[in-house]
């Protein structure tokens, strides 16, 4: 087999989301439309205009089941979330842990991205001590917590990874980009397995800049579950989220030889940028770039537009949602009434920034595996520009037993785009 023809499948899933931990619980939470958005007193105390957000629950107790006291001593929430999701994906893929005194697993690597990284460590520990002239009191753990690659580096050590271990960063496209890069790496024959996805902490220091930009919804502090409103007429900004989503990607050959469960096949992916041209900017997407990205992914996947059963969109609840849907329609060459089902996982968990693509790829694969498309919450008042798509946007979960192909896209600050196409695995 030519290396360029190597097929890549998903054999493990790990997710720590604001509404659930673990693939099974997350699938259940998506199915029942469980919101992970809650009001947070620390945001109110800091005078945030938006005081709601998505933060995984129960992590204080959970992390002690996964990590030693010494490991936790040198980890911020971004790293903890990445570690829990990666360990879960590894275990879910049926792989034994590499012993501490054994050689690393030379064939497995990790691309685990983050958007903002360890800024909470900088703001809470490093900055104050340095300003007080107490550099000598910082301890040994600052660098590993604030280096951009802190999350993937920790995962590499925990799991004994001997292939490429790196952290990518492309704002809100980060997690999806990681999945695509990992897919390409395996396809090229440079690794047999790659953990891929993204993680993001929940600190007020991570979210403050977005609040200051007035891109967060400040109108629903008293009704958290209604705050994240993608596709709606009342969308007034996104809701910040956090957590991690990590997929174990593996060459089909390797997965078959191990006789493990195959959740889905990665058929194709494409990453590009709009170059801040043609209407694109640091904060707005170049629609032509978006279309080219979608078309690139679909072309590589080798599927016809009509074969795509669902779109798990970027869809954050900003002014860009109607433009995104229009871009999908144009890119796929399908009129509104023949479009795949369109929905937003962010309506339930908020926008987890660098973790969003990872968590939403996990959601997409679970939907494919179990044959459902979860409801897109809080868009009963559909945006008027989307009226023609009304029948294609489910408000409640729908069972789609013949769901064969799902497309997932992310579009990020910096005018960067990523789109990946998953298919239910078939021989």
């Amino acid at each position, binding site marked *: 087999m030519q290396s360029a023809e190597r097929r890549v499948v998903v054999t493990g899933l790990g997710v720590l989301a604001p509404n659930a931990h673990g693939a099974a619980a997350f699938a259940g939470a998506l199915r029942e439309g469980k919101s992970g958005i809650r009001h947070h007193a620390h945001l109110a105390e800091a005078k945030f205009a938006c005081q709601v957000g998505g933060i995984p629950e129960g992590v204080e107790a959970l992390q002690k089941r996964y990590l030693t*006291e010494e490991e936790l001593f040198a980890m911020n929430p971004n790293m903890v979330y990445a570690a829990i999701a990666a360990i879960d994906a590894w275990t879910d893929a049926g792989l034994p842990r590499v012993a*501490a005194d054994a050689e690393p697993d030379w064939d497995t690597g990790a691309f685990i991205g983050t958007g903002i990284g360890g800024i909470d460590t900088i703001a809470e520990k490093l900055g104050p001590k340095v300003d007080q002239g107490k550099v000598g009191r910082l301890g040994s753990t600052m660098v590993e917590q604030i280096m951009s690659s802190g999350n993937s580096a920790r995962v590499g050590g925990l799991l004994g990874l001997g292939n490429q271990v790196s952290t990518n960063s492309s704002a809100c496209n980060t997690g999806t980009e990681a999945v695509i890069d990992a897919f390409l790496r395996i396809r090229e024959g440079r690794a047999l397995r790659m953990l891929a996805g993204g993680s993001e902490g929940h600190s007020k220091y991570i979210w403050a800049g977005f609040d200051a930009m007035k891109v967060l919804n400040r109108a629903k502090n008293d009704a958290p579950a209604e705050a994240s409103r993608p596709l709606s007429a009342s969308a007034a900004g996104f809701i910040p989220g956090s957590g991690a989503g990590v997929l174990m990607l593996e060459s089909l050959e390797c997965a078959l030889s191990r006789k493990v469960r195959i959740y889905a096949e990665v058929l194709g992916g494409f990453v590009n940028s709009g170059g801040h041209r043609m209407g694109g900017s640091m904060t707005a997407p170049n629609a032509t770039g978006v279309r080219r990205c979608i078309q690139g992914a679909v072309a590589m996947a080798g599927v016809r537009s009509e074969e795509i059963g669902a779109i798990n969109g970027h869809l954050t609840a900003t002014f860009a949602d109607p433009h995104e849907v229009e871009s999908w329609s144009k890119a796929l060459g399908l009129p509104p009434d023949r479009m795949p089902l369109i929905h937003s996982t962010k309506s339930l968990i908020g926008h987890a920034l660098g973790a969003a693509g990872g968590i939403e790829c996990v959601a997409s694969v679970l939907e494919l595996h179990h044959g459902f498309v979860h409801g897109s919450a809080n868009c009963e008042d559909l945006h008027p520009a989307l009226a023609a798509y009304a029948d294609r946007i489910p408000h409640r979960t729908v069972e789609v037993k013949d769901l064969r192909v799902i497309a997932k896209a992310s579009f990020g600050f910096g005018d960067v785009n990523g789109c990946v196409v998953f298919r239910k695995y078939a021989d």
Partner: protein
Amino acid sequence: MPQEMVFEKVVTILKPFVKAPDALAKVGMETTILGELKVNSARLVDVVLEIEDAFDIEVTDTEADKVSTVGDAVKLVMAKAKA
């Protein structure tokens, strides 16, 4: 503070960083911190900071560099606490 108490306190500080639980179970004054307890050398910085806080002393880099065994740390604390 009696030496036994200082020893116990130093071992308690070291405990989260120890990667060899068997060696910790029979820890004594002669036990080496890096070699036997397998504490990551980078974490010695944190151990020293915690010892400074626990015993309200200041340890110079030169003094810290001379600590090899648990006993070295205990004796350093005893000497500093007296001073």
